[in-house]
């Protein structure tokens, strides 16, 4: 169970967002500039809200009133960014292993093989990110975030940098990911078709405020 209440003035935008997510895939849906990515960055610990509270199950990640602010690296929250942000100096395999190394987790050959198979990235393992297509890069980014064993996965417009054909190529993988991994997800998107296909619940943002919450029929 994720509960988010955050406030911050971001330039022209007065962000004041409150919602909860009980699991499954919650879509943060809205036009660009509505503040979706800022909310994601606050949950990940990359931006500090001015006021508010963010809690994941019984762990408080941020609480302005109590002076709690867990740094990003200790939150255990995986993020897939719009532009894959793979490490260019590592091979795909090392990118996938990075989170496990940094969090001091034991090698789990079964989990690794499973994610590699799920995302169909076996043939890419020895390559460097510079030699991957946009779609391949994004699949590796999904794998990298999954293999850090996150408690929550944030997907920030993961398909926005891809053309329509690539999107169609990736969507089935995203669905497999949703049905296979038991980790709750927040999915940011401005694309109604995408949200209808992936999300189980929708939080609709407009100009920094939540205007509707409910099922995918909201989109």
């Amino acid at each position, binding site marked *: 169970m994720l509960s988010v209440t955050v406030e911050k003035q971001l330039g022209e935008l007065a962000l004041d967002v409150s919602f909860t997510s009980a699991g499954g895939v919650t879509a943060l849906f809205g036009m660009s500039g509505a503040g979706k990515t800022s909310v994601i960055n606050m949950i990940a610990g990359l931006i500090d809200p001015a006021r508010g509270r963010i809690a994941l199950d019984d762990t408080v990640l941020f609480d302005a009133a109590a002076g709690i602010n867990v740094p990003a690296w200790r*939150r255990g929250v995986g*993020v897939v960014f719009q532009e894959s942000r793979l490490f*260019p*100096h590592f091979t795909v395999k090392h990118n996938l292993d990075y989170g496990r190394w*940094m*969090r001091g987790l034991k090698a789990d050959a079964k989990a690794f093989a499973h994610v590699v198979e799920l995302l169909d990235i076996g043939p890419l393992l020895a390559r460097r990110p510079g030699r991957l297509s946009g779609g391949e890069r994004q699949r590796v980014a999904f794998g990298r975030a999954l293999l850090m064993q996150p408690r929550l996965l944030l997907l920030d417009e993961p398909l926005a940098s891809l053309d329509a054909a690539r999107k169609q190529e990736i969507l089935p993988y995203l669905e497999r990911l949703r049905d296979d991994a038991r980790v709750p997800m927040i999915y940011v998107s401005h694309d109604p078709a995408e949200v209808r296909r992936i999300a189980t619940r929708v939080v609709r943002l407009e100009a920094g405020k939540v205007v509707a919450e409910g099922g995918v029929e909201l989109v």
Partner: protein
Amino acid sequence: MFDLSPEEWTAVALSLRIAVVATIVSLPFGIAIAFLLARKNFWGKSLLDAVVHLPLVLPPVVTGYLLLITLGRRAPLGAFLADNFGIVFSFRWTGAVLACAVMAFPLLVRAIRLSIEAVDGKLEQAAATLGARPALVFFSVTLPLTLPGIIAGMVLAFARALGEFGATITFVSNIPGETQTISAAIYTLTQVPGGDAAALRLVVIAIVISLAALMLSEWFARRATQRLRGE
């Protein structure tokens, strides 16, 4: 013409040793200060920036003289280091290393700083979300991506150290076998009758070393850049 006398060989070897040691010893400090200047905000940052760059704008003789009156045998700090730690700079090759390191430091810091500033902060953020604490982010992402700049900075520093003359000769004089580098030897040879041929030999050697350093660094930088493009 390339029959170097033992004295000339000594000057060449000593120059290389001083330049290499000065570059290597100043590298960790250069990386640390470049990182502070590129990524941190703190009180006195512009002052630190100015002090680091001072040897670039001061006459080298002034830098050498400042070293002499702070770290010379009879200077308080110099005497303290000599008495308590046995570290002596004055009229030793180690003093030449120090003078060269100080003179080369601004070039080293500048190249590395620019390179750190060019590293995409978004990659560092991604590393943090994957569980990397700040020190690990630095060593696993920032530093490897800065490699071309570090190489460029080291070559500039090496070349500067190899060519250093004013600060070195002021601080540790011009003692054959101890502090007489190629530059100092060339200067000495031009001051004595019949030294022209020897001076020319050393000039050719200085050109060869500098060109070799430049080409080697180009090669390293190209390889590093290829790696960083993810190819």
